[in-house]
C-alpha cells in the first residue's frame, strides 16, 4: 500500500511502489492532464510539483512521493480561478496541439514561485527540459512574462 497526497487529497493505493508516479496519477487517480511523452525524463510532458519542486513523474517511483505533496495541472487553477499563467496562455494563444502544455505550465509555475520576474534567459533555463513539437516556444516566453506582470499587478492591488 502506498499513501499519496495529490492536489490536497489523500489516497491509499494498492500499487507496486516502483510504479512511476505518472501512471498512478493517470490510471489509478484518473488525472490524465499529466502526459506521457518519453518515459526517460527527456521531454517534460509529465512535469508535476513535488513539495513545490518540478519533477518528471515518468521517472519518479510512487514510493518517492509518499509523505510529500503532489500537485498536478488539475490543481493549478485555485478556487475555480485560472492561474495567471493559464490566463496568459489563453491571451497569448500559446497552445497548438496542447499535449506538452500541462508540463510547460507546471514548469513555468514552479519558476514563478521562486522567481516572480524572470527574464528570457531565466525562462529558457527553467523550461529547456520541456519539449514542444509545435514550436510554441516564443509564445511560451511571452506567456510567462505576461503572467509575471499580472502577478506583480495583483500584488500591488492587494497591497
Amino acid at each position, binding site marked *: 500500500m502506498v499513501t499519496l497526497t495529490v492536489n490536497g487529497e489523500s489516497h491509499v493505493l494498492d*500499487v507496486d511502489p516502483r510504479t512511476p508516479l505518472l501512471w498512478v496519477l493517470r490510471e489509478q487517480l484518473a488525472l490524465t492532464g499529466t502526459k506521457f511523452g518519453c518515459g526517460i525524463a527527456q*521531454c517534460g510532458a509529465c512535469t508535476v510539483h513535488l513539495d513545490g519542486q518540478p519533477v518528471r513523474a515518468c521517472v519518479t517511483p510512487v514510493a518517492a512521493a509518499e509523505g510529500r505533496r503532489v500537485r498536478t495541472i488539475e490543481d493549478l487553477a485555485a478556487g475555480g480561478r485560472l492561474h495567471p499563467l493559464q490566463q496568459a496562455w489563453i491571451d497569448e494563444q500559446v497552445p497548438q496541439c496542447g*499535449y506538452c502544455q500541462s508540463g510547460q505550465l507546471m514548469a513555468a509555475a514552479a519558476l514563478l514561485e521562486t522567481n516572480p520576474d524572470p527574464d528570457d534567459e531565466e525562462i529558457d533555463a527553467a523550461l529547456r527540459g520541456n519539449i514542444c513539437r509545435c514550436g510554441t516556444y516564443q509564445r511560451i516566453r511571452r506567456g510567462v512574462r505576461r503572467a509575471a506582470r499580472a502577478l506583480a499587478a495583483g500584488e500591488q492591488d492587494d497591497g
Partner: protein
Amino acid sequence: MARWTRRAVIATGVAAGGLLAVGVGIRRVALSESLAPLVAADGEQVFHISLTLAPDNGVTAIVPHAEMGQGVHTSLAMMLADELDADWEKVSVREAPATRDYANYALARGYLLGERDVPGFLLPTVDGFFLAATRFEALQITGGSLSVRTTGRYAMRIAGAAAREMLVTAAADAWAVPRAELLTRRGELLHAPSGRRARYADFAERAAALPEPPAPRLKAPDEFTLMGTSPPRLDVPPKVDGTARFGIDVALPGMRYAAVRAAPVFGARVDSIATESVQDLPGVRRVVDLGDAVAVVADGYWQAEQALRQLDVRFTASGNESVDQDDIYRRFADSLERAAADDAFTTDLRRGDAPGRLAAGGRLVSAEYRVPYLAHATMEPMNCTAVVADGRCELWLGTQNPLGFAKDVAGALDLDIDDVRVHNQYLGGGFGRRAFPDFAIQAARIAREAGTPVKLIWSREEDMRHDHYRQANVSRFRALLDDTGRPQAWENSYVDKHDPEEAPHIPYAIENQLIRFVESPTHVPWGFWRSVDHSLHAFFTESFIDELAVAAGQDPYRYRRALLAGEPRFRAVLDLAAERSGWDRPLPAGHGRGIAIHRSFGTIVAQVVEATVEDGRPRVQRVVCAVDAGFAVHPDGLRAQMESGIVYGLTAALYGEISIRGGAVRQGNFHDYPMLRIDESPLIETHIVDGGGPLGGAGEPGTPAIAPALANAVYAATGIRVRELPFARHDLSRPERPGRDIA
C-alpha cells in the same frame, strides 16, 4: 442501401459536367436520419450536414477535420459563421462523426474544380470519385494543408450562406415582406421598415423544412465580419487546465493496457515467444502474437511495458539485417549513376534543352546534396483504445483520417466498415504520422484477443523505430551561367519521388530545365512528413540557387529577385522578407543572413535567417518570415503555423537524423533524436501578404524554406556550404568545407 444510391446520384451529377456545383455542399441531414442522433442535441435543428441551430440561438459547426493544433476547428467554424451572420459568441464546434456522410466530398470537389496541388497520395481516392466511389467513401482526411482550402471554401461557407438564405426566406414568408428587405446580423433577422426582429432560433424549424437554395450567394471579402480576424481559438481553454481529451486519455470500464514491440528490422516476423518468461509477473494478463509484433496485456501500462522488456522474443530474418545507412546512400548513388548511363530517368519537368546547353560548355556549377530519414516524433506517442465485441469494433484515438482508419480496421478484422466506429479525440501532434493506421489495427487485434477494452500505448522507442519516415534522398544539380551570371540551364536528378508532384520545381525564369528522378527503393517505410517532398526539395533547390548567386558574384536576394520578374506574388513575398529583415544592414562579424523562398500547398513563403556559429554549431538568432496564402482567414493562426512550421523544420535541419544500422532504426528517444528546445528557439516574426487568388494552406508551408535559409546564412557567416543535413553532422569550426567531399 439508400445512402449509397444518393451518393451515386451525386457522383453522376459531377460526371455529367458541373451539376455538383451546389448540391453536394449542402446535403441535408434529413436525408440520413441515422445521422441526427449523432450530431444534434435535444431540440437542435439540423440544418445540413455542417450546421445545427439550438433553441438558445447557439450555432454548432460540424467539421469533418481533426484538430491537432493547427486551429482548423476555429477557422472552419468562422467561415461558416461569417456567411451565416451568426453571433460568434454563440458558435461552438463539434468534430463530425466518422461516418460516410462526412467523407471529404469538399476535398474531391476542390480537386475537380482545379486544386491541382492536392497531394498525389489522395489522387487515387479522389479519382475514385468517378471510378469507384466506394474508395472515396472512406476519405475523411486532415492533411495536405487542405482543410480551409477545400472544406472551408466548398462546404462550410456554402453551408452558412445556404442556412442564412433559408432563415431569411422563412422569416419573409411569415412576416409577408419581400426577402430583399430583410437583414441578418449577429444571429438575428431584422426588418427595418416594420421594426420587426427575431432570433434565428425562432425560425429554425420553419427554415429547416425549406428546400435548400441551389446557389447561395457568398460574401465578397469586403463583407466579411469574421474571416480575416483572429478570435481566440476554441480549443485553447481545455488545453491550459488538463481537461482536453487526447486519445491517450480515454478510459473505459474494465479496460486493460497493452505495450507492443514490433520486429526491429522492417519486414521481419515473430519467430518464437517465450510466453512463460512473463506470464507470472504481476498484472500480466496475456501475451499476443501479432505476426510482425508482440504485445503484452496487463492491468496497468507500466506492468505491460516492464513485462514486454523481459519477454524473450525471437524474430525471423527478413534479409535486411545487414543494411546500414551508408549502404542506402551508396544504393542511391548507384541508382543515379545507372540511370544516367542507361538514360533511365523519369522526367519530372522538361523545358527547353538543358542537356544540350550544358554539353555546349561554359560556366558550369554543380553540387550534390543529401538528407536523412526523419521521424515525426509527435509529443503524444501512437496509442489507441479499442473494444471488439459482438462483431463490432469501437476505437478511441487521435487520427488524421477517422473514416480511413475505420475502413482499414474493418479490413484487418474482417468486419463491415459500418461495424467499426471511430471516436476521434484531440491529436497530440499529427504532422502526417496519424494518417497511418498501423497502431489502430494493432489495438483492435489485441482487444479482440483480450476480450476486454484495451488501451495500447507505444513507448517512445516504439514510436521512433516504427514510424513511416520522411525519405532520405540524394539530389544532384548542374547549371550553366552566362557571362552576366544568369543561369541558362538547370538540371536536377534525384531519387525516390513521392509528392506533391511539383515539390522540386522552381519559380525562377530559367529557359532550359530538366528535372528528373529514378526510383531507388529501400526497406524503410515511407510516410507523409510535414510538407512531404517539399521538406527536402526546398533545401536542395534553394541551396543550389544560392550557390549560383555566389558563383555569379551577386547578392543572393537580388539574384533571386531578378529571376522572379515574371512572378509578382513571389517577388512581393521575397521583397517583404528582405525588407523586414534589414537585408542591407551590416551585421556584426561572424553573423550571416540567408534567404530562401518556396511555394507549397498554394502558399508562398520567404524566410530570412540570421545566424552565427558558436562552438562549431549554428545558432539562429532571428527568423523573418513573409507569407502569402492568398487570404489569411485567421491571421494569428497563420502566424502560429509559420512559427510552428519553422521550428519543426529547424529542428530537422539542426538535429533530425534517423539512420539505419543492421536494418533497424538506430535512434530511440529524445536523447539520440534531439529536439529544438526553448533556449535555442529563435525570435520569429511573420509578415502576411494577402495576395489574392485561391486560398493556400497554412499547416505545412512554413517548414520547407527554413533549412536552406539557414544553410545560406551559415555560408554567409563562415564561407562553409553545408550540403548534407543535419547540421549536427558537421563541425563548422573546422576549416574544411563539409559537403565538398560528397559533391
